[in-house]
């Protein structure tokens, strides 16, 4: 009955798998060319009214979470499940037979086998051959035949399941991702040194998430190498339950703190300005920009105001700061406080440029003719006033993902499954010894469901061990 249902037939076809895999590959490219989850204004500037509307309808700006991309994934899962059921039903008996039987004739029919003779009789060979067989391949079943005896053994029959193991791992990954998105969250929070918080902001939606405990930032330390590049961001954090400290730990990038299923990651930092201790130290009224012109290697510093276009020296075009964001997202990643501006090169198209306050080299990634950076507030301060110790805030990524262990199990299952599927095979080996006059005629043959070449080599080797003269 299942054979006739056209929907079932569609889902058990590998043609569908190939089409889905290639569709996923091709559509995934779009999201790497169109930046994801940026602001609506930025897209409008970049693509114009028509393309903006079109992309918006097709969910291109968050395509990996769009209904059509998720549908492709769902179809792939249905395809995997249907194929597995269909094929497993056929091979189950083969993989787990009630009784393994073998006939020497199956092996005798093989084209590739080793034949040779031994001057002794089959009875004299049995003990020795069984021992050699056991050592080289595994413990054999010995069966008497009319003319002598047969040795037979098989191994790794279960590796025929390898491909199903790989496919089940993909279900683990999807299940883990779903658990994470349903029962987890991904948020961020900035905590000034000496202060504590009990809630975080959820990424993308901006919703508030209460944690059920408090995080206190005791200290933030930034160390740099001699050449000025960052060496380490270290936050000393204490977890407070009902106001009482329960856990203190220093976190650095790559070494987060885990508490009650919630993980705290070092993600950004900034300076707390002395006047307003709550907000980061950037004041939008007094913006100092540095323009590095690649061609001449010159750096020009200019003061900018939001909304007022600036001429870039050397006739490199215009730049206007559009907006200041306290925590800007770039490719879905929080990069901390940033300016967003529009750069119009001389004779070129306007483009949106994001300038994180804390990463002066960020704009190099754009690979433009001009690299724009925000002159560091504390650089200026050191020239001007306030030689006191700077007060920092630490920017934490706060994540709860109960699905991550399911995903990790999927990873392990996938690697194991691939190794089994690609590099192990169901192997069967037969040695048949029959009397021929005063001598014995010996046949060695083997069958493998994969890597037949490797099995052939093994057969030759075992034949040699049993006394097949070298060719």
């Amino acid at each position: 009955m299942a054979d006739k249902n056209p929907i079932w037939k569609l889902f058990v076809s590998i043609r569908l798998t190939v089409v889905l895999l290639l569709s996923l590959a091709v559509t995934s490219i779009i999201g790497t060319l169109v930046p994801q989850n940026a602001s609506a204004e930025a897209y409008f500037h970049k693509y114009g009214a028509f393309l903006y509307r079109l992309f918006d309808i097709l969910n291109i700006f968050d395509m990996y979470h769009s209904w059509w991309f998720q549908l492709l994934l769902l179809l792939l899962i249905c395809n995997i499940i249907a194929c597995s059921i269909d094929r497993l039903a056929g091979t189950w008996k083969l993989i787990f037979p009630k009784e393994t039987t073998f006939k020497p004739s199956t092996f005798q029919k093989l084209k590739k086998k080793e034949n040779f003779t031994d001057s002794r009789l089959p009875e004299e060979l049995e003990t020795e051959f069984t021992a050699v067989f056991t050592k080289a391949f595994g413990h054999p079943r010995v069966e008497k035949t009319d003319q002598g005896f047969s040795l037979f053994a098989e191994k790794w029959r279960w590796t025929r399941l390898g491909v199903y193991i790989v496919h089940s791992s993909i279900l683990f990954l999807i299940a883990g991702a779903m658990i994470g998105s349903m029962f987890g969250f991904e948020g961020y929070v900035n905590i000034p040194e000496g202060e504590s918080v009990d809630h975080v902001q959820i990424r993308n939606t901006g919703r508030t998430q209460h944690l059920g405990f408090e995080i206190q930032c005791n200290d933030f330390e930034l160390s740099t190498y001699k050449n000025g590049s960052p060496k380490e961001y270290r936050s000393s954090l204490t977890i407070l339950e009902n106001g009482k400290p329960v856990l203190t730990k220093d976190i650095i990038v790559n070494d987060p703190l885990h508490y009650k299923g919630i993980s705290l990651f070092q993600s950004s930092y900034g300076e707390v300005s002395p006047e307003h201790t709550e907000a980061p130290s950037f004041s939008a009224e007094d913006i100092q920009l540095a323009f590095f012109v690649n061609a001449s290697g010159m750096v020009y510093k200019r003061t900018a105001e939001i909304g007022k276009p600036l001429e870039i020296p050397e006739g490199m075009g215009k730049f206007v700061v559009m907006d200041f964001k306290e925590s800007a997202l770039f490719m879905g990643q929080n990069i901390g406080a940033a300016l967003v501006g529009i750069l119009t090169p001389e004779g070129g198209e306007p483009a949106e440029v994001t300038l994180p306050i804390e990463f002066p080299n960020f704009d190099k990634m754009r690979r433009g003719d001009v690299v724009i950076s925000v002159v560091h507030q504390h650089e200026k301060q050191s020239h001007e006033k306030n030689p006191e110790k700077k007060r920092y805030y630490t920017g934490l990524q706060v994540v709860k993902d109960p699905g991550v262990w399911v995903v990790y199990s999927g990873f392990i299952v996938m690697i194991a499954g691939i190794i089994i599927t690609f590099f192990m095979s169901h192997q069967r080996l037969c040695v048949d010894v029959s009397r021929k006059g005063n001598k014995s005629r010996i046949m060695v043959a083997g069958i493998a469901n994969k890597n037949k070449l490797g099995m052939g080599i093994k057969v030759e080797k075992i034949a040699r061990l049993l006394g097949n003269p070298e060719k």
Partner: protein
Amino acid sequence: MNSSELLSVVTFGYGIAATLYLVSWIFQKPFPAQLAKWSAVLTVIGNLAGFFMRWAESYRLGIGHAPLSNMYESLVFFALTIGVLYLFIEIRYRSPLIGVFATPLAFLAMAYASMSPNISARIQPLVPALKSNWLIAHVLTCFFGYAAFSIAFGVSIMYLLKQRERSDGKGLLAYLPKMNILDDLTHRMVLFGFLFLSVGIITGAVWANSAWGSYWSWDPKETWSLITWFVYATLLHARLIRGWYGKKIAYLSIIGFVAMLFTYFGVNYLPGLHSYGSF
């Protein structure tokens, strides 16, 4: 001699090996291939030595780390993985002509590393994001995957050339290994590469989760590695179930290689988290 000087010699060595393989093929003489093999062996040893010297030098500078942290170092390692894998195949298959299509890839990687003005050979300290034990596991597995796909690409090109062989059994193409051997070798390299690419993506995901709290964030490099994975997954399914052989598999292997190149180089022109790989 410091590592940079040694690695310049290595670039030259790969160039010589590639030329000798080509000479051996064109003049159909086995002797240049013997020379090529030995220069390839020496070059790979030099490449390995250069890699470890650079590692030691970084410790002498007080910023010790495995030399796998920027474009220059990754290209040196890429050449090394291609070299090692190729020599293994030459010894296993006893067919030096695969070298005509494999050693130039190692040479190009090294030449690009030494000559491109955008790539700095200076040893730089590790940024905080790269300070992790996962760095070595991630880069090692990814690059063995890349090397296998690169050799699969070279062999696929050989296959497509071999198809044009004249029926009288003369001409240069007659010297190439038989089509079924090339087809089988492509498949084997893709199997090997697929395993390593999978492990590379997985170690990357685990690392990302311990550094940023998210094992997958659709960053362009991640996405392109997945695209590459999809292309090779297509190849494997088409072959195992639909019985595709030869030409179709060769084309898919070339498409996969292009996706791999984009994962490696092209992504640097797109913004994202992996930007430290681009300088």
